């Protein structure tokens, strides 16, 4: 089922900004509260670290059964986890059967980093760039995890990273990057090329 999230009280729905999204396993929409607002209300110091007040922790379980702890404030970046926390379902380990331990560890690291206060935008960007400076298949796994857990910033970061893998490359280079075997016959290839010749000029 393909779903669209739209402003409710608008007769004139803007098309170009709407995109179809799949429903995640935990279907509940909540108000998007900016993380900084939440941080401000709970932080007790302004240094570059997580708040030092008593921390509530959420436990996540990977597909292999390995557990990872994440502080609630960091977990709130995931809409899925935020919903579960709001519904009081986050007191026992949350199974995530489609996320491997290796990936989940990194996702937790990402959420922790993005929950820190006092990090300037420049160094966060640099950190993000390093975060996605990994093998392609790992980035794809990040995308799937970010999609499942509904972490918009991570999803944007990783999707952009894949788009960057495509930019500026020739068809042959793209085939190599993603290990694709083009199955066009010579006639098809010629026709497809002809249709898109404008892009090569």
């Amino acid at each position, binding site marked *: 089922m393909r779903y669209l999230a739209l402003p409710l009280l608008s007769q004139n729905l803007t098309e170009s900004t709407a995109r*179809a999204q799949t429903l995640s396993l935990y279907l509940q929409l909540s108000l998007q509260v900016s993380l900084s607002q939440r941080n401000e209300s709970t932080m007790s110091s302004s240094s570059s670290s997580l708040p030092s007040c008593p921390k509530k922790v959420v436990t996540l379980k990977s597909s292999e059964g390995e557990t990872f702890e994440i502080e609630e404030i960091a977990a709130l970046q995931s809409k899925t986890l935020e919903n579960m926390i709001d519904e009081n379902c986050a007191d026992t380990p949350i199974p995530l059967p489609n996320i491997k331990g290796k990936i989940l560890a990194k996702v937790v690291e990402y959420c922790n980093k993005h929950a820190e206060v006092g990090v300037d935008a420049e160094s966060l960007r640099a950190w993000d760039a390093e975060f996605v400076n990994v093998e392609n298949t790992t980035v794809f796994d990040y995308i799937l995890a970010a999609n499942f857990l509904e972490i918009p910033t991570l999803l944007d970061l990783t999707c952009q990273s894949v788009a960057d893998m495509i930019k500026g490359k020739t068809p042959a280079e793209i085939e190599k990057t993603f290990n694709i075997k083009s199955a066009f016959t010579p006639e098809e290839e010629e026709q*497809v090329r002809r249709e898109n010749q404008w892009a090569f000029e």
Partner: protein
Amino acid sequence: MLRFRTLLASPYRKRKKQPKTGRKTRATRSDAVPRKQCHRTDELRQPHQLETVEQEEEEEEAEAEDGELGFHLKSSARSNAHGVQPLGNLFLSPNATNSRNTGLGALQNLTDELLLEILGLLSATQLGILATVSKSFYIFCNHEPLWRNLVLEALGGDFSFNRSWKSTYVAGCHPSFDVGSVGDLGLEIRDFYSDYVFQSWLCANLEMKPEWLERDNIVRKRGISVEEFVRSFEEPNKPVLLEGCMDGWLALEKWNRDYLVKTCSGVRFSVGPVEMRLEDYFCYSDQTREERPLYLFDPKFGEKVPVLGLDYEVPVYFREDLFSVLGNERPDYRWIIIGPSGSGSSFHIDPNSTSAWNAVITGSKKWVLFPPDVVPPGVHPSPDGAEVACPVSINEWFMNFYGATKSWKKKPVECICKAGEVIFVPSGWWHMVINLEESIAITQNYVSSRNLLNVLDFLKKPNASTLVSGTRDRVNLHDKFKKAVEAKFPGKIDQLMLEAEDKAALQKKPSFWDSVTDSKAGAFTFSF
């Protein structure tokens, strides 16, 4: 979706050819209608040879009677499907591979939605290059919504629609390239299976099923007094279809395409995120085959072209218009609505807790309404009411959720509103509208004494900044409005509050649902 897959795996029953032309219908036409899959089994066993299909005016109508699940496709020219089939067909295919996956390589584990999200970040040139990499990328990169976004970003409302969004983009941004030489249909790819891409195409080309249009259970009234309207409908907050209250509207005689184009020459109207001239919009609406066609919905038509405002008058039932006390600072309140068959609005509640009326000048609209306390099936409002998730297209809602309403105790109110008829949409009611043919309508939202208190309450809500619509001054609107009403109608608000308290003390009235009757309309069919 599961129900849909079952349909597509069902055996082929029959196929009807339109006798109109003497042309042979080509079995290899890229309709991607799954019933043909069985018919084409023999062809599939032959060595795969993808052929180009020449451009022809499409007259064939594929029909499968599988109980009530058969779908009709629009008989006029359809958008290109490139032979994409739904995933269920993979199990019927003698060839077990899905070129979707082999053609994506390492990206194949991403869902279609995620892949399209990534492609949405690419420039047109990058998309064009990527389309030549594999059959799979060819299909994904030709996904029309991607090109629609690119056109609207690059050209705004100044585009001359040319058969498809991709073609429109190339013609508009690479004029030296001859798009005409490319032809419409491109490559046909037989071994690509994807529910998302297929569904997208199907919803764009689907004809409304007769049973979706049959139920017409709204109360219809002609020539009632304002008092009766207020007493029987506005106060109890019930919808009604009013006949005969557009008599005398010049718009009914004068408004057609030619008149509007001439009268509005050079003026741009709001169409989704852009503004377009009418002639450009009609050029687009004539050709488009999309799930969610762009809809012309302009809140300033009266200011942009004052003579249009003279061609109609507010029906007598809706003359009390309290937001008018705000003068120019009032929120948007009236719209001209123009759209092709298939365009419309998915389920929503009107802004600011206002009530509305919608008058059809030409064409016809199918309405489905649910009362404020009944969330339509398949619709998921956020807890605070600021956002709603609903199926991507209106057709998709009908395909997957309309049937459920037949067994619900609280059935929706439904009707087809035709030219000359006005529907009253009470405040807070969910509603969805689809144009059954090209339609021109006027709609206004208003606040009367009956819903003034509700509106004030709504504007006072703590999240007014996200919920209040149609004005730039969301946060202060409540105070401004209240002050202005007090100034013009001193004591009105207090009096209404007293009356409301009295009413609350009275016995509860019979439920609305006790009064809804479910009548089947006579056989009402459309042909396009």
